[in-house]
């Protein structure tokens, strides 16, 4: 399981890679947090349930990241640990995190929304799953 950022001219791409689709979604969520702060500084103290539904995997990824962006915004929270279950076009997840602590997290930027740009959810030749898109900051 791993995550990374990829280049976009004005914004930033988030990419998760995992053994399963669920792991790739969870890693993409870590990449999302890493746009704001170092995920290692975020303590997984509170659990927040997240659900979404979409007609395909790619739209589900955008919905998942947008649901997290919404929870981050209204709870003034950051998340660092994710458990994701996907079935029948539905995602059920738990995100663990804590309220933003400006001194400790030194958050760089707010994420406005996940976009359809460079959006992909697919299996890699080595069998692992990739989940990615560009987020607007």
């Amino acid at each position: 399981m791993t995550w990374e950022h990829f280049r976009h001219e004005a914004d930033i791409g988030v990419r998760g890679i995992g053994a399963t689709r669920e792991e790739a979604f969870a890693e993409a969520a870590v990449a999302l947090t890493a746009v704001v702060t170092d995920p290692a500084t975020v303590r997984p103290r509170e659990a927040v349930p997240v659900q979404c539904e979409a007609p395909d995997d790619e739209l589900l990824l955008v919905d998942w990241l947008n649901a997290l962006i919404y929870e981050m915004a209204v709870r003034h929270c950051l998340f660092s640990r994710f458990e994701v279950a996907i079935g029948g076009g539905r995602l059920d997840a738990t995100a663990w995190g804590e309220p933003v602590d400006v001194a400790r997290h030194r958050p760089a930027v707010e994420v406005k929304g996940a976009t359809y740009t460079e959006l992909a959810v697919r299996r890699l030749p080595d069998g692992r799953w990739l989940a990615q898109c560009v987020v607007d900051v």
Partner: protein
Amino acid sequence: MDLSQLERLSEYAWRVPPRGGMRVPAVLYADRGLMEAMDDKVLEQICNVAGLPGIVKAAYAMPDAHWGYGFPIGGVAAFDPDQGGVVSAGGVGFDISCGVRTLHTGLAVAEVMARQERLAERLFQVIPAGVGSTGRIHLDEARMDEMLAGGAAWAVAQGWGRPEDLERIEEGGRMSGAKPEEVSARAKHRQRNEMGTLGSGNHYLEVQKIAEIYDPAVARRFGLEQDQVVVSIHCGSRGLGHQIGTEFLKEMAVAARQHGISLPDRELACAPIHSDTGQRYLGAMRAAINCALANRQILTQLTRDVFDEIFPGTTLDLLYDVSHNTCKVETHEVDGQKRRLYVHRKGATRAFGPGHPDLPPALRDAGQPVLIGGSMGTASYVLAGTADSETLAFSSACHGAGRAMSRHQATRRWRGRKLVDDLAGHGILVRSPSMRGVAEEAPGAYKDVSAVVEAAERAGLARRVARLEPLVCIKG
């Protein structure tokens, strides 16, 4: 960008004739250097826009255009509702009505520099900026709806600002046709504690000196004098606009399919203006414009309070307030006929020329002030709309410098702390809750705003009036 596919109309204008699915040509305004530096994606995106139903005349890219979502940032396109024209959430963008306003301080540079440190500290304390910051204003459901319907006019009625501010704001400070009931509960929830906050990323409040005057007559009309100080505020509709953009992008992707509109890029998601989704989006988007106008109005009052404390008696009169990410109904002349069109400007500024009836009387003969935000440490500009801009690009001009490199590249190249120290060495005080945020917004990560502005002037989109240089920068 590979320029071989483009016809060169002039030194500062390039055209792609209709091909493939394009219904109209695409026209890009920039000099050769800016064009060559533009990402190929800009060309692909502006050509995609040219293929949308009901588009009129051409799809335009401004000199600061860069790779966006569906539409390029710096894209302008107008649609005729009676010819199947569409409204696009991607054509407006996530940060609805993000914009800039500039305030006169009436102070000379020397007066401000004598209190520069204290001014920077107080502004940083009073202006909520950065991730997780909240304002002191908390809106319940009823007041939220009043704000969404009333915009800056609502804010003034609540005591944030003065009635005379309103005529210096597009739409008189209140966008009509807003439908707060079309704004989702989630969008309103996201905004509840965010009124009067700057946000993060490229949003800022700057105290600036007027470093150079290019057009003394128009500068006088705008109240700008060399070595005087102004304040510019760049921010938008905060979480509410972002949430509306997110929700309608999804809904419009479905609506486009239902209306038989094939999209080369999902991000071009749109709906016919004459459709339920189109009308609901317009109502919500206009409410978000009001949210942005109210937000900048509240921040204006907070700024006035700080100035009055440090420089008693200053009034900080508003020069003008422009919005960058909008879709507005405007009358434009096309082939000799006046038509009501839905003009999308995404990362582009409206730039009405002299005599336009929507300009306030005091500015009408000079043309609309076009406020161009630079990056921290470089320059910003005040331009004036031209008569030619109407024919060139539905009275539109550029909006800023545009990024030249990604955030990731910027953080690898610069350290925030060092940038702040270096800028302080040049007499510019930067205050920000995030040093990484400062690095991501490093001046060198942006294109040369002067080249962008010069190209806009040479292309005829707007004329330079004054250059502004920062003295204090509060970064979100």
